[in-house]
């Protein structure tokens, strides 16, 4: 994944000027490969989703109409309009064709254009993922740096506390936070996702687990980096302890953390359903959940596509960060 990025920054290309012609070819090839790979990922996601929804028991028409009361004409009309009685390969190719043309269609259940719904619900999700990532980074860096400094028994105390937090189910933590900080202390609203104050509790509930995991990984990384020879070199140059930790050691320890954060961000984008429900927040997770239960194919596929695109983008962001943090990766593979 780091392949594309190592060529794009101007500095890297300039430094390797004598290879620039060759580098440009490599760049073009890598960009093409990356684009093809992304398209492959999206195609795979759509295909797997389509197959899974078909494999789910119950015909789409029966599940869609489970709660309704319709005459035979309306039932036949719905089946015909959505092409539910077409052979599966035809349905599949029709979907692919529409997606390629950028038509995601209309939700069977919400009866509105799928894009409108995604556009309405996605900002809530993005905002929550962003604040959760921020909280995770800040909390884990603080925890990691503070605890790495300590004696072994203090460190294991931190480690056990972290394990405990990781083991808490987020929805339970969410309800606990609600009860204490919203229902009892009245500090934050329990419902309504629009205000900044409304973000605090769901962010805390979602970030607690990841922050604990990341803090642990970060601490291990810091400890390992402290044993590296470059630490001795830096100390020999008379660097202060704080500067040493922040400028040199932390940078080493951040590498695995970045990858981990990328994965966490990706999984939060469709996976914050329970927190969305507990805090009555708008979000794409709830959208996905109800779409799957109702076999709302256009909506499910759109959510999967958006999530997959977001995942690809996050991966690219992780590559960029890795490149920034660790100069060694810029030349790797050359």
């Amino acid at each position: 994944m780091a392949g594309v990025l190592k060529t794009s920054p101007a500095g890297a290309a300039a430094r390797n000027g004598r290879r620039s012609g060759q580098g440009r070819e490599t760049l073009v090839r890598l960009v093409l490969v990356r684009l093809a790979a992304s398209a492959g990922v999206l195609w795979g996601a759509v295909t797997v989703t389509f197959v899974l929804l078909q494999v789910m028991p119950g015909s789409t028409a029966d599940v869609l109409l489970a709660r309704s009361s319709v005459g035979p004409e309306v039932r036949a009309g719905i089946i015909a309009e959505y092409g539910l009685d077409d052979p599966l390969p035809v349905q599949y190719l029709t979907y692919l064709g529409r997606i390629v043309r950028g038509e995601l269609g209309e939700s069977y259940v919400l009866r509105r254009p799928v894009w409108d719904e995604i556009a309405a619900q996605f900002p809530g999700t993005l905002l929550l993922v962003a604040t959760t990532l921020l909280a995770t980074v800040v909390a884990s860096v603080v925890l990691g740096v503070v605890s790495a400094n300590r004696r072994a028994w203090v460190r294991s105390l931190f480690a056990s506390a972290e394990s405990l937090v990781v083991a808490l189910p987020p929805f339970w933590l969410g309800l606990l936070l609600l009860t204490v900080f919203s229902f009892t202390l009245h500090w934050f609203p329990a419902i309504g996702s629009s205000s900044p104050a409304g973000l605090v509790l769901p962010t805390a509930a979602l970030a607690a687990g990841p922050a604990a995991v990341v803090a642990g990984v970060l601490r291990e990384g810091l400890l390992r980096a402290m044993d590296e020879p470059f630490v001795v070199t830096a100390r020999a140059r008379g660097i202060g302890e704080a500067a040493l930790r922040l400028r040199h050691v932390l940078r080493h320890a951040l590498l695995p953390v970045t990858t981990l954060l990328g994965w966490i961000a990706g999984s939060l984008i469709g996976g914050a359903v329970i927190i969305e429900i507990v805090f009555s927040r708008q979000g794409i997770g709830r959208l996905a959940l109800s779409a799957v239960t109702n076999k709302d194919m256009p909506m499910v596929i759109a959510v999967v596509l958006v999530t997959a695109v977001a995942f690809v983008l996050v991966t690219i962001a992780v590559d960029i960060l890795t490149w920034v943090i660790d100069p060694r990766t810029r030349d790797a593979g050359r």
Partner: protein
Amino acid sequence: MGAARRPGITRRPGTTRRRGTTAPAVTAGAAMLVLALAAGCSSDAAAPAAGGAAGGGGAGAASPRSGGTLRLAVEKEPECLDPHQSPTESARLLTRPLVDSLVYQDPHGGLHPWLAREWTVSDDRLTYTFRLREGVTFTDGQKFDASAVVANLDHVVDPKTKSLLAGSLIAAYESAKVIDPLTVEARLKRPDSGFLSALAQPNLGIESPATLKGPASKLCAVVVGTGPFKSDGGFTPQKGIDYVRNPAYAWAPEGAARGGPTLLDRIEVTVVPDNSARLGALTSGQVDAVTGLAPAGIGTLKNTPGFALHTTRFPGANYSYWPNTAKGPLSDVNVRKALRAGIDWRRIVKNVYFGVYDGADGPLSASTPGYDHSVAAAYGYDPAEANRLLDQAGWTQRDAQGYRTKDGKRLALRHMWSDPSVSNLAVQIQAAAKQLGVELVEENLDGGTFVNRLLSGDYELIDTSFSSPGPDVLRVLFGADNIPTPKRGISNNMARYDNPEAEAAFKRALGAKDQAEQFGVYAEVQRRITEDAAVLPIYSPLSTLAAREGVRDVRFNVDGTPDLSGIWLAS
């Protein structure tokens, strides 16, 4: 249409129990000018009035006060707001403040003028002529007239609307035409004694014709009617809907709490799916009222000072176990009667639901217009009789685990759960059945498998309730045309009951000339069903609105949803 497709909701895979849909129901247009068919059928327990009675929780009945915003948290959302399209109870609750109907149905089932001042029904009961109220305007400024009525009825039955309920409520409708600007005539394909009460449902609410011509997707968000409130922003999924008062409103139905504009300035509805969050939001003062509290939450709230609980029993079919009467051990009426008598349903309901729900006294909840009191006696606990019936049915042997057997086969009944939340109740019933020597095999299935098994009749018991504002729901639940099959798709006769006497009665009920005649026929049906033990009723589900004490005049509509427009705030 034969009994078929009136209302209906069946279990929605994966979501909460459906006390979903309203069947239409009741009532007949009499042969002549029918005005204000005054209530009549007093339902016992005065259940529908219970909420209103609380009024203000006692302290000095202040006189109604104008102004303020009601903040309401609801548990479910309608998916699509348009009541013409959506079958959900949530859509009815959230559109009732926006749309008025031609006919008003009071909580006892009585029919009264609303947007129609009066109506006549032809002798063959196929032509309904409505005289409309003058001077009514939609909140977008359009005038309400006969052409608006025609546009609405045609919109509901248009296949392009893909109506999931409303269209089937008026399945007998053929066409409508404008006689003059304030007179409209509707033709039916066949007599339907439930036509007027169907028109009274929010699902047949009158929307601005201009909006009906626009895209259907827009109607799923914004509904424009002549109602006491309007909502320009409309409904946002996973969020809610805000209403503001319609200051021009002057056409509340006869019998409604208030004539002119509502006292509330605004209503803000937020969708809060989590039970604990909804209760906490209420008790911490973040909202004024909440709907759909779970029994545990109701128990908590009863002991919290400063809050009032407004409830009414949902009309329609009780929450019940529906036995497969077509095949398997429960095709034997004696086994069904044995289960009915041999399990102490009331005690179990009391234990599981903290005394919040009432036990059931028949196929219909006692608050349903047309409920027949005489059947109640058949629903008592009598274990000796139950054991006698099982012996008589031939289940005389016992196996090593104490279950009854016949010809070496154990008396085992597979119960398909409507929803995982039934587990506490199901486990208690299972234990009680074991005392009788009957094994209940509890099956918590995914939605698709549930649907497949329902269609093929591969089960012995299914649980669910079915709310509906009249006894016509019996036709939906026990009519042979409504037995779910792979060809027909999901339908609501889960007992797979097919009885010639009942079929004949359903036909007579459709052709009944007035409400009294229709109720009489359905009383017969209730006795028939009780005699056949075609359903094992367990409790009457409650519609609840829990509110802080300053929320006054909480009443319920005929379908059991709270009437938001009558509420005012004392503080």
